[in-house]
């Protein structure tokens, strides 16, 4: 009981620690909106506006008030989920983002699962056989992986698998053009199609996501594999491993139970950096594969000078990032038995 309470208290303090980050994110996003070159009202009004409508927009946006006042108005708008109007589509930014977020999330999550399930075994195998071919492979993959521009990898994959081999579909979004999206439940096509029992749609969504997810996975694989190898090597060199080896435990027990579980914790903490990479690279991958997520929405908005949309996108991504980090932190707290003894 005391154990559970301690854990709960640590989790609560972790959640509280995320608050300054969220506050910082909101302040920076606010300042970015107000730092627009020239007159923000003119930008929000769009290119076709005359002086009268600009003045009106200035009033509705509250731009005639002082900066602190504007900030509180901005907070109030955020509370109501109001991110402003998208001038390119004429719809509220929050609706646009909500409609496109699942596509980005689905891509990022599939890519992360793929990358973790390749990188961790690779790192572990490399650490257990130093100097063997798998160790060299790991080193090549980790050095090359961080140097690969995501958009370049994506294009090479498209060329090889779509144009040359013809086994991948055209890089044109989440589904075959003739397929209809499944009824929306989670917004993840892979899950929704299964729930609806539409196997054909599932297959179509799956073949569409493979290449973009692989592109993203190749990029995020390197830091995870490098960290896994490093921390596994460190764990294997420690005294308790020598002890369990001397006690005659099987290789499987030594590696799996003792070394791996201890090596995993530093890997979990590096996931934060990996998320940052993944969410940033996500934008580039979405452009290459015409993936209808919030990244490609932001690119369109940038080109069209649709600033409310861009700010909404930056804010959404940052909050997503903070949330992901928080989830990792909470998970870390829950699995690490040492943390509950500290207090």
């Amino acid at each position, binding site marked *: 009981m005391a154990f559970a309470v301690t854990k709960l208290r640590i989790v609560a303090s972790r959640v509280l620690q995320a608050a300054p980050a969220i506050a910082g994110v909101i302040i920076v996003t606010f300042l970015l909106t107000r730092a627009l070159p020239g007159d923000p009202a003119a930008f929000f009004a769009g290119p076709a506006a005359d002086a009268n409508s600009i003045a009106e927009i200035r009033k509705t946006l509250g731009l005639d008030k002082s900066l602190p006042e504007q900030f509180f108005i901005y907070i109030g708008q955020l509370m109501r989920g109001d991110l402003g109007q998208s001038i390119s589509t004429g719809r509220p930014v929050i609706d646009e983002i909500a409609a496109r977020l699942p596509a980005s999330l689905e891509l990022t999550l599939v890519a992360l699962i793929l990358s973790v399930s390749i990188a961790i075994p690779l790192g572990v195998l490399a650490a257990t056989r130093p100097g063997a071919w798998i160790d060299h492979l790991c080193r090549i993959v980790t050095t090359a992986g961080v140097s690969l521009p995501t958009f370049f990898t994506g294009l090479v994959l498209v060329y090889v698998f779509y144009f040359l081999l013809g086994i991948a579909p055209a890089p044109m979004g989440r589904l075959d053009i003739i397929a209809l999206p499944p009824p929306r439940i989670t917004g993840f096509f892979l899950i929704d199609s299964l729930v609806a029992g539409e196997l054909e749609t599932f297959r179509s969504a799956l073949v569409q996501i493979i290449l973009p997810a692989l592109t993203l996975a190749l990029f995020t694989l390197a830091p995870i594999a490098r960290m896994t190898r490093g921390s596994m090597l460190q764990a294997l060199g420690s005294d308790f491993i020598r002890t369990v080896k001397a006690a005659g435990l099987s290789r499987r027990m030594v590696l799996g139970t003792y070394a791996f579980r201890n090596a995993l914790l530093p890997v979990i903490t590096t996931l934060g950096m990996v998320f940052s990479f993944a969410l940033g690279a996500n934008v580039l991958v979405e452009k290459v594969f015409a993936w209808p997520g919030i990244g490609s929405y932001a690119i369109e908005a940038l080109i069209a000078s649709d600033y409310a949309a861009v700010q909404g996108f930056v804010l959404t991504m*940052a909050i997503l*990032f903070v949330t992901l980090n928080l989830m990792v932190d909470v998970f870390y707290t829950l699995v690490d038995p040492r943390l509950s003894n500290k207090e």
Partner: protein
Amino acid sequence: MAMAPDAPVQAEVFAARARFIRHIRHVLTSNPVTLLAAILAFLILTAAVFGPLIVPYNPLETNAAMQLKPPSATHWFGTDQLGRDVFSRVIVAARLDLAIALAAVAMSFTVGAIMGLVSGYYGGWTDVIIGRLCDTIMAFPLFVLAMGIVAALGNTIENIVYATAIINLPFYIRMVRAETMVRREAGFVQAARLSGNPDWRILAVQIFPNALPPMMVQVSLNLGWAILNAAGLSFIGLGVRPPDPEWGIMVAEGANFIVSGEWWLAFFPGLALMLAVFTFNLLGDGLRDIVDPRMRT
């Protein structure tokens, strides 16, 4: 009045320099990968400095008769949709890509060093504010923050440089701060303080040189990342404008032709980009061996 340096002191200096050169030679020859990276870096720098002088064609010159020709003896990397020579464009682009990355890294280096020194040396509320600033920058996915900054400041190359500098800033601040904190109360710093040196002098002369070696490693690793970041921003249409040759925008333009099989448009600039990033990453690892012999394997 200049004094002739003592002969023994001079000999000592020479010996130290000889040791350093021997050490560099040892690192370069014992690790062929670092040697390769050094050669590649030299080639890339040559392309950046002399690019426009050595390329066979004018990178901006269009030629309607030579559109979308695959690589050949006359056009090593083929030609693009306007008949421009891809090889010439890739070589000339090195200057712009490197210039953006170098400017951004120099900016984060300078600002990061000053903020890190102040933060680590004085502590207190200065440290709290600078630390908060770092946390806030790191609370964003960095590429996304760069997009937001460029969108807010305006879509120009200078703003790409500022955005890249800002997102790299926390890494420099944190590194210099840590290096400063461990030396704040060190014997040589206290000695300097007791002999009446002002704070800025202690920071500049006693503490900063000690933080320099790890920072140089960071610079090299960061350079690759800065190139990648700048090219990513121009790939999505920010900063560099066509027809200026730049690797990111060339890949973006070539991307439209990948599905119809004209691979060379995007492939060669992408390859150049990858090679440049790879080179600076390898060089960073090599530099670490030079400045930190303990890490040598």
